[in-house]
């Protein structure tokens, strides 16, 4: 198991390696370890865009031992929410960090000039980043670095586009092609540190404690992944397969959630994309599933006959929701062009879409004027949305400067709170399934639908009390701390059961029972919640946008009293847990 922690200080261009078996034994890896490292290295009052913010990347004990342990956890202070930021990404990041010999990487300080970092063979190279600073397209940045740096096939290349440089609070960090530390603004933290990219490569190895068992467990995981149904839905249509079912369930947020049904859902569904656009599928490192669906979009040049370009665009349910239904965009070409634009700048697609949806409604209702928005935003108008995305990056006026700080902030300034769809300061994910989904966004420690999967609770159970919903959400979130400490892909949660996890640890020389695993999940949850509270999180301040009570969901119209009761219970729970 990897227990080396690489600590990089950008303020004085130095680094050191610490061996921390204590941390990895007690807290597994990933989220568990990252929480502790953040506590050790960061002042909870740090300015998210200042020198004191700290970024932790952590991998887990199953990387690269087993398939599907393909994710890296990033922890930092979020410039979007001002609180704990946590974001997960696939690509080749996890395996590259592990093969370079590290369990975790901590980045502190702030560089005076733009730099990019190369980590290899136990060294960190601080490279001059001035030439590539200012290139807004993260895809181009990727290509330039790829030409300049060795390590094809084994390296990870995390970088920011223009949005990160311009400190858009929901800028992402792109890794390889099409994978992202998407949510909560890690890209802006990179930008504030003048860190354009981070490249990691290595060719290291270690031996399992029990060689025979190791190959057996490996084979079991591999066979289950490719043969069972546990992961089918991710490789066939991919997550985009959710569009039609959610639309039928009255759960697909549409036009800033003025409706939960989209008349053009078919057009932008996983089925339609697969039939007309799917051009290739690719995988994260050490994952047999290949859930990354790439659409091929052929675009003619208007004034040059017989001249076309074909671009590949990665799509997923969340993007179809945020840049499709949420914006009333029902054309596949339009949707794909929006995704591509967002990808180029290195913006979080979900936040960008939800921000634009709010801005559109705010304009319609006269909360803001066309002078603010510069162009006439209207649902379905792709050309204007493309422009507006440029403006979020360029920030040509006061309005776009505010919009680049998220809708919680923008609606503080302009009003329109009731239809500003953010939870804990983070723009809403794409499920209007019912109480559990919305409570999950609010209570989830990273305000993500993946924290506790409320949307799935909504689809499985009816007739539950507010207390039961909160309990269910917290217990699911506790278990997911184990998964995100290992760190295995959440899509593989059906494979990595507590029984299998316990057995998979054995050949690595670690004995841990299913009971102990569960307990660790609870402890990690508690540690994270405590850190969050120290950073200023107060559950009493959680806001539920009025809009969610106005629109029919799978559970009909939602009752404010239910949410109120659940919130009070959650506040009690937080006090109990934090003490």
């Amino acid at each position, binding site marked *: 198991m990897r227990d080396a922690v690489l600590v990089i200080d950008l303020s004085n261009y130095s680094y050191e390696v610490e061996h921390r078996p204590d941390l990895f034994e007690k807290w597994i890896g990933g989220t568990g370890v990252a929480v502790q490292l953040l506590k050790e290295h960061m002042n909870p009052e740090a300015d998210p865009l200042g020198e004191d913010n700290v970024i932790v990347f952590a991998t887990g004990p199953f990387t*690269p031992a087993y398939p599907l342990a393909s994710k890296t956890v990033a922890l930092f202070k979020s410039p979007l929410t001002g609180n704990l930021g946590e974001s997960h990404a696939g690509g080749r990041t996890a395996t590259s960090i592990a093969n370079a010999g590290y369990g975790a990487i901590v980045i502190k300080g702030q560089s005076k000039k733009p730099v990019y970092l190369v980590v290899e063979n136990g060294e960190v190279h601080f490279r001059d980043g001035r030439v590539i600073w200012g290139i807004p397209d993260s895809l181009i940045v990727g290509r330039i670095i790829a030409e300049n740096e060795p390590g094809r*096939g084994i390296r990870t290349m995390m970088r920011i586009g223009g949005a990160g440089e311009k400190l858009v609070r929901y800028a992402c960090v792109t890794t390889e092609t099409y994978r992202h530390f998407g949510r909560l603004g890690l890209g802006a933290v990179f930008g504030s540190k003048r860190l354009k990219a981070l490249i990691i490569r290595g060719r290291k*190895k270690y031996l399992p404690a029990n060689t025979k068992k190791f190959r057996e467990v490996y084979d079991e995981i591999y066979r289950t992944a490719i043969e069972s149904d546990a992961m089918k839905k991710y490789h066939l249509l991919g997550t985009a397969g959710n569009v039609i079912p959610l639309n039928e369930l009255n759960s697909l947020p549409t036009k800033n959630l003025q409706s939960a049904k989209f008349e053009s859902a078919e057009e932008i569904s996983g089925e339609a994309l697969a039939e007309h656009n799917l051009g290739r599928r690719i995988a994260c490192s050490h994952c047999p599933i290949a859930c990354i669906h790439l659409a091929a979009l052929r675009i003619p040049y208007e004034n040059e006959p017989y001249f076309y370009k074909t671009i590949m665009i990665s799509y997923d349910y969340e993007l179809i929701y945020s840049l499709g239904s949420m914006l009333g965009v029902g054309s596949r070409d339009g949707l794909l062009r929006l995704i591509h634009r967002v990808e180029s700048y290195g913006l979080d697609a979900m936040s960008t879409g939800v921000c634009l949806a709010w801005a559109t409604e705010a304009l319609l209702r006269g909360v803001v004027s066309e002078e603010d928005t510069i162009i006439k935003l209207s649902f379905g108008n792709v050309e204007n949305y493309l422009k507006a995305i440029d403006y979020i990056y360029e920030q040509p006026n006061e309005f776009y400067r505010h919009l680049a700080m998220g809708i919680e902030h923008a609606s503080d300034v302009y009003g329109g709170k009731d239809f500003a769809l953010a939870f804990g300061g983070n723009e809403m994910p794409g499920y209007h399934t019912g109480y559990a989904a919305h409570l999950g966004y609010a209570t989830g420690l990273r305000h993500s639908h993946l924290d506790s999967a409320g949307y799935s609770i909504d689809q499985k159970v009816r007739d539950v009390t507010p207390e039961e919903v909160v309990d269910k959400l917290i217990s699911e979130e506790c278990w997911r701390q184990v998964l995100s400490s290992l760190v295995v892909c959440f899509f593989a949660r059906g494979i990595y059961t507590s029984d299998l996890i316990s057995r998979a640890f054995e050949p690595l020389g670690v004995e841990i029972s299913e009971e102990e695993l569960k307990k660790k999940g609870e402890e990690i949850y508690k540690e994270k919640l405590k850190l969050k509270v120290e950073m200023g999180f107060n559950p009493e301040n959680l806001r539920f946008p009025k809009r969610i009570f106005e629109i029919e969901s799978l559970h009909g119209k939602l009752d404010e009293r239910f949410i109120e009761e659940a919130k009070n219970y959650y506040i009690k729970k937080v006090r109990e847990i934090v003490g």
Partner: protein
Amino acid sequence: MKQLVVKDIEKCVGCGLCMYACSRKFVKRPEIGNSSSAILAVSLSGFERGATVIFCRACTEPPCAQVCPTGALKPKRGGGVVYIENLCLGCKYCMDACTLNAIFEREDGKIAVCIHCGYCSSYCPHGVLAYEEVEA
């Protein structure tokens, strides 16, 4: 003789499972990591543009063996090489001699080269690789 071959490179998703399989190929010493791996999937500047899988193509007159000063690499009957690890100095002349760059450097400075054992082919989930009888 059986050899590792590429069936359809366009189906490669860049998962690298072949690389990790190669590290595990020895029953007695299955490694975790990529140090001893002798196969590498690379993209054409992003996997959206396609892939190349790099491994030894089993030359009948292997230049890598010809430049090896110690006899650590020896031509194998039917093509390719056998690698006698304890003779290897780590000079890496072979790495330069192979036009395909199909010899890799290990963590310890010695080399990794495909021995056409076929182990990785059972872990390619998308049928890119196969282990087949090939005419010499």
